[in-house]
C-alpha cells in the first residue's frame, strides 16, 4: 500500500520546508554573531524567508496536486490560506520590531517561523495525521511564545494555554482514532463514503474531532482560554495567534465539512455554537477595558461570522469565508499594529486609559484605529461591510436564515462596543499622560499596509474562483 513520492509532491510542500529551514538559518546567524544578532537582523532574515516562501507558494497557484497520498493537497484553497498565514506572520514579525526583549529575538523569530510552517501544513492537510501534526507544531511553538514576555501574566497565559490546548488535542486525537476506526483509513477522502452515516463510531468520532476544532477557533463554550492568553501573551504573539490559529483551523474545518457526504446534522451543533459565539463574543466585549482582551472577544465573534459563511457547504460560502478571513486579518493586525505603536518596551499600550483623548494627541493613529474598529463593526466604507453583506447573502441563499439573523444582531451589539472605544478616543475633556513616540518603521509600514488593503478590498473584492475541490 506504499505510495511513490514524486518530485511534484516535494514541490507542493516546498514553501513549508523553506519556512522550517529558514528558522534554522536565523538561529545559526544568531549563533555566529558575537553577542546576539541585533533585533533587526533576525527579523529581516525571518521576513525575507517568509517572502520567499510566499513567492514559491504563489507560483504554484494554478496546479492541483494530491501530494503524499492525500497527506497534503495542493490547490487554490491551500495556496490562498498559505498566503494569508505568511502575510500575517510577516506583519507579526514587523510588530516585533516595535517591542519585546532584544536578546531572545532570534529564538522568537525561529519559533514564529516554525508555527507558521505548522499552520501552512494544516492549510494543505487532507489526512488526519498531517492535520494533527500541523496543529501540534503550531500549538507547541505558541505555548513557548506566549511565555516570552517578562511579565508574570505571560507565563500564566502559557501555562493555561498549554494545559487547555493539550486537553483539547486529547479530544481531537480521540475523535481521530474513532474516525480511523470507522473509515479504516486516515484520509479525509475515506470519510466521504455515504455508508458511514450509519456507523455510530463515525458520529462520535466526528463529534470529538469538531470539539478539538471548536476549541482552536475559540467558539463560545470552548473560548475560555482565548481572552486570558491574548491578554497575557506579548502583543505581536497575540496578533500572530489571533489570525494564524484561526486561519489554519478554518482550513481544516472547511476540508472536513466539504468532504462529508450529507453533512447537515453532523455539523449542525457546530453552527449552533458559531451562532452563540457571535452573540456571546460581541456581548462580552461591552465591559472590557483592556484592548487586547476586547480584541480577543471580537476574534471569537469574527470566527463565528466566518464559520457562518461555511454553513451549508455551498461553493460561494467557501469563497466569502476566505474573503472575510483575509479582511479580518488586515483589520485585526491593523488594530494590533496601532496598539504596538502606542506601547514601549516596558509596558504595552493596550489599556483604555492610553486611548482616551487619543484623537487630540495622536490624530493619525486615532484615525487609523477608528478606521479598523469601524471595519470590525462592519461600517460601510470598509471591506468589513462588504464581507458581512456577502456572508449574509450566502446564508440567506443556503437556507441558514437564522444564522443571518444572529449575525445582524451580533453586529448591532458589536457596534455599541466598538464605538465605545471610538468615543473614548475622541472624548473632549480628557487629560491623559504623554505618549511615548515609538519609531519602528516596520510597524508603521504594517499598519499602513493593513489600512490600504481594508479600504481597497471594498471596491475590488478579490474572491478567488478556483478554490474547490478540497478533499480530492
Amino acid at each position, binding site marked *: 500500500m506504499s505510495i511513490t513520492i514524486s518530485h511534484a509532491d516535494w514541490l507542493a510542500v516546498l514553501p513549508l520546508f523553506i519556512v522550517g529551514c529558514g528558522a534554522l538559518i536565523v538561529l545559526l546567524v544568531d549563533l555566529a554573531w558575537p553577542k546576539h544578532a541585533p533585533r533587526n537582523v533576525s527579523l529581516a532574515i525571518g521576513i525575507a524567508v517568509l517572502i520567499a516562501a510566499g513567492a514559491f507558494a504563489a507560483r504554484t497557484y494554478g496546479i492541483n496536486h494530491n501530494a503524499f497520498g492525500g497527506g497534503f493537497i495542493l490547490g487554490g484553497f491551500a495556496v490562498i490560506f498559505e498566503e494569508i498565514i505568511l502575510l500575517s506572520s510577516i506583519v507579526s514579525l514587523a510588530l516585533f520590531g516595535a517591542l519585546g526583549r532584544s536578546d531572545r529575538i532570534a529564538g522568537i523569530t525561529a519559533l514564529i517561523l516554525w508555527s507558521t510552517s505548522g499552520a501552512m501544513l494544516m492549510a494543505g492537510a487532507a489526512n488526519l495525521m498531517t492535520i494533527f501534526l500541523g496543529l501540534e507544531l503550531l500549538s507547541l511553538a505558541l505555548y513557548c511564545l506566549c511565555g516570552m514576555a517578562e511579565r508574570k501574566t505571560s507565563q500564566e497565559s502559557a*501555562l*493555561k494555554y498549554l*494545559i*487547555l490546548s493539550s*486537553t*483539547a488535542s486529547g*479530544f481531537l486525537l480521540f475523535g481521530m482514532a474513532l474516525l480511523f476506526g470507522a473509515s479504516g483509513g486516515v484520509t479525509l477522502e475515506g470519510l466521504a463514503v455515504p455508508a458511514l*452515516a*450509519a*456507523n*455510530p*463510531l*463515525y*458520529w*462520535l468520532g*466526528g*463529534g*470529538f474531532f*469538531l*470539539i478539538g476544532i*471548536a*476549541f482552536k477557533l475559540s467558539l463560545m*463554550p*470552548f473560548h*475560555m*482560554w482565548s*481572552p*486570558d492568553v491574548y491578554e497575557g501573551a506579548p502583543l505581536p504573539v497575540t496578533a500572530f495567534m489571533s489570525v494564524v490559529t484561526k486561519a489554519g483551523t478554518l482550513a481544516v474545518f472547511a476540508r472536513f465539512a466539504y468532504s462529508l457526504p450529507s453533512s447537515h*446534522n*453532523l455539523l449542525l*451543533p457546530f453552527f449552533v455554537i458559531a451562532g452563540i459565539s457571535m452573540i*456571546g463574543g460581541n*456581548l*462580552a*466585549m*461591552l*465591559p472590557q477595558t483592556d484592548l487586547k482582551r476586547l480584541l480577543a472577544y471580537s476574534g471569537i465573534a469574527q470566527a463565528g461570522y466566518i464559520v457562518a459563511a461555511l454553513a451549508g457547504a455551498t461553493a460561494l460560502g467557501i469563497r466569502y469565508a476566505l474573503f472575510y478571513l483575509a479582511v479580518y486579518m488586515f483589520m485585526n493586525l491593523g488594530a494590533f499594529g496601532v496598539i504596538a505603536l502606542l506601547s514601549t518596551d516596558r509596558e504595552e499600550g493596550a489599556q483604555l486609559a492610553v486611548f482616551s483623548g487619543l484623537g487630540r494627541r495622536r490624530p493619525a493613529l486615532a484615525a487609523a484605529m477608528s478606521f479598523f474598529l469601524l471595519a470590525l463593526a462592519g461600517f460601510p466604507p470598509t471591506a468589513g461591510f462588504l464581507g458581512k453583506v456577502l456572508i449574509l447573502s450566502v446564508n440567506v441563499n443556503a437556507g441558514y436564515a437564522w444564522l443571518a439573523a444572529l449575525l445582524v444582531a451580533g453586529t448591532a*451589539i458589536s457596534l*455599541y462596543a466598538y464605538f465605545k472605544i471610538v468615543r473614548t478616543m475622541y472624548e473632549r475633556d480628557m487629560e491623559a499622560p504623554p505618549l511615548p513616540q515609538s519609531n519602528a518603521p516596520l510597524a508603521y509600514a504594517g499598519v499602513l499596509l493593513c489600512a490600504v488593503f481594508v479600504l481597497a478590498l471594498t471596491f475590488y473584492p478579490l474572491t478567488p474562483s478556483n478554490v474547490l475541490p478540497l478533499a480530492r
Partner: protein
Amino acid sequence: MMLLVIWLLPLLGAIVNFAFGPQLKRSAGIIGSALVGVSLIATLAEWAPATTGAGATLGVRQHLFAWMPGFDFGLLLDPLSLIWTLIITGVGFLILLYSIGYMWSDEAIARFFAYMDLFVFAMLTLVLSDNFVGLLVGWGLVGLASYFLIGFWFFKPTAVAAARKAFVINVVGDVAIMFAIFIMFAKIGSLSFSAVFAHVPMLDGWLFWTCTFLFIGAAAKSAQIPLHTWLPDAMEGPTPVSALIHAATMVTAGVYLVARCWPLWNASHEAQLLVGTTGAVTALAAAVLGIAQWDIKRILAYSTMSQIGYMIMGVGVTAYQAGVAHFFAHAFFKACLFLGAGIVIHELADEQDIRRMGGMRARTPVAFWAMFAAVLAISGVPLFSGFFSKDQIIYGALAHGHPWMYAAGIVTAGITTFYMFRLFFVTFFGTYRGDLNPADVGVEHPEEPTSHEPQHGATHPPAWIMALPVAILGVFSVIAGYVMIGSNSPWSRFFRPVFGFEKLPPVAISEIWTSVIVLVCVAIGFAVAYWRYATPEALADAPARLRAETHRMPRVLVRLYYFDDLIDLIVVKPAQALGTFFGRLFDPMVIDGAVRGVVSLSDAAAERIRDWQDGLLRVYALVVVAGAMCFAIYYALQGAAR
C-alpha cells in the same frame, strides 16, 4: 391687463413701504393710500367690461399660470367681485387717508402702511381669483395681514395674544375650505368656479359636506357663532384696522364666499337651513352681547357680528341680492362709526371706555354728526341705507319659508337700535366724565392708556385728514340705500346676470307690512334707549346710573356666554395636557425605556459572561470538558439513532 394693475398695485405699495420703511417715515402713508386710490380708479374704469357678457363670458378674465393639471390660477372681475373690489379699494382708500392722521404720532408708521397695503392686496386676491385655490391663498394672506395688524403694537401682550387667537381660528377656516377643495377636486377634477358650478350634480352625496365645510371657512372668517371669539379681541389693533378689516372688508369674506358659490347652495336645501340658522342665531346673540359692553370698539365689534349675522342669514336663505345689498350699506356706516369712534378715542388720548366719556358733542362735532347719520342708518330708520337692505333680508327670510328667522330678524333690529343709541347718548350727551374717579362710574380696573411713544417734535396732522373721510362715509351711509329701492331697482338689475331673476311667491305678510313691523321695533328700541340714557334727569346723575348698571349686568353676558372658557376647556387644555403627557412621560419613559432596557439587558449579559471568566484554569478546563460532554451526548444520540 387692467386687472393686473388693480391686483398688484397694493402689493407694490406694501413692498415699497416695507423695504424703505425707516427712510420714508410719514410719506409712507401717502404712497400707500395713493396706490390704493389708483387701484380704485382702475376698478371704476373696469366697470363697463365687468358687467357685460352673460353666463360663462360674464366679466373680465385674466389667466395667470398653472401649477398642475386642475390647479390653474386666473383673475375674474364680474359684478359680484366688482362690488367687493369697489368697497375694498374705495372704503380702503378713505380709511388709509384717515390713518395718516391717526398714526401720525406713531414711529412705526411705515410698517403700518406696509401691512395695510398687504391686506388690501390679499383681499383683492381673495375676491378677484377665478378658482377656489386662489381664493384659499387670498383667505390665508388676509388672515396673515389681520394677524400683523392686530398685533401691530407687539410690545402689548394682550395684542400679541389676540393676534395669535385670530390667526389660529382663521387657520381653522382655511383648513375647512381645504377639505371642501379636496372633495371638489376628487369629484369634479377641476377647481375653477365655472367648471365646479357647471358640474354641481357630480358632487351628489358630497354636496352637503362641501357646502358645510365651505361655510365653516366662512364662519371662521366672518366671526359666526362658534368661531366668533376672535373678533372682540381683535379690537386690540389700531382703530383704522378695526374699521377696514373688522368691519368693512375681511369679515364679509364669508358672505362673498357663500354668494359666489350660490349654485351649490341653491342645490342643497339642508345647507341653506344650516347657514340661515347660524346667521340668525349670531345676529340675535351678538346684539344681546352688544348691550353688555362698555368699550366703544367692542360694542361696534358685536354690532358688526350682528349685522354680518344678518348678511349670512340673507345669503343663507338664497336672498343673495339682499345679503349683498346689506354688505354694501353696512360697509359705509360701520366704517363711519369706527372712524368716528377713532376720532373720539384720539381726542381723549386713547380712552375707550364710554363710561368715562360723555359730552363729546361739543369737542368732536364732525364725529357727532357723522356718527349720528351712521347710527340712524344702522338702526334701519327710513331714508337711511340700513332700512332698505335690512328689510329686504328680513322679508327674504319670510319669503323663502323661514318664519322664525323672520321673527329673529325683527327682534334683532330692535335690540340693534337700543344699543346703538345707548352708545350714542352715553358718549355724546351729558357732561364729560373723564376726569371723575373711575370707580364711581363703575370702572373696576381702569386700563392704563397704551404708551406708544409720540414722535419727537410732535407736529400735528392736518385737521381735515381725519374729518373728511368720516364725513364722506357719513354721506354715503345715507345715500347708499337709494340704489336698492323697489323690486326692479338698479341694484337687482345689476345682479340679475350673476344670480338670475327669481320671482318671490306671495307670502302672508307683504313687504310693506314687514317694514312697518320693523319700524315699530326700531321705535321701541329708540324710546327705551332715550328713556334710560338721554332724558335730562338721566343725563344729570349719569355716573350713578352707569355704576348701577355695571353692577347689575348679568354675569353670563359679561363672560360672553362663557364661550371663551368653553373653547379653552374643550380644545386648548386637552391639547396641552396631551402634549405634556407625550413629551414628558411617554417619550422618555416608554420608548426610550425600551431601548434603555435592551442596552442594560446586554450589559447584564456581558457581566454574566465576565463572571464566568474568573481566571481559574480548572474552571476553564471544566467548561471545556462540560462543553465536550454536551457534544458527545448529542453525537452519541445521533449515532445510537442510526
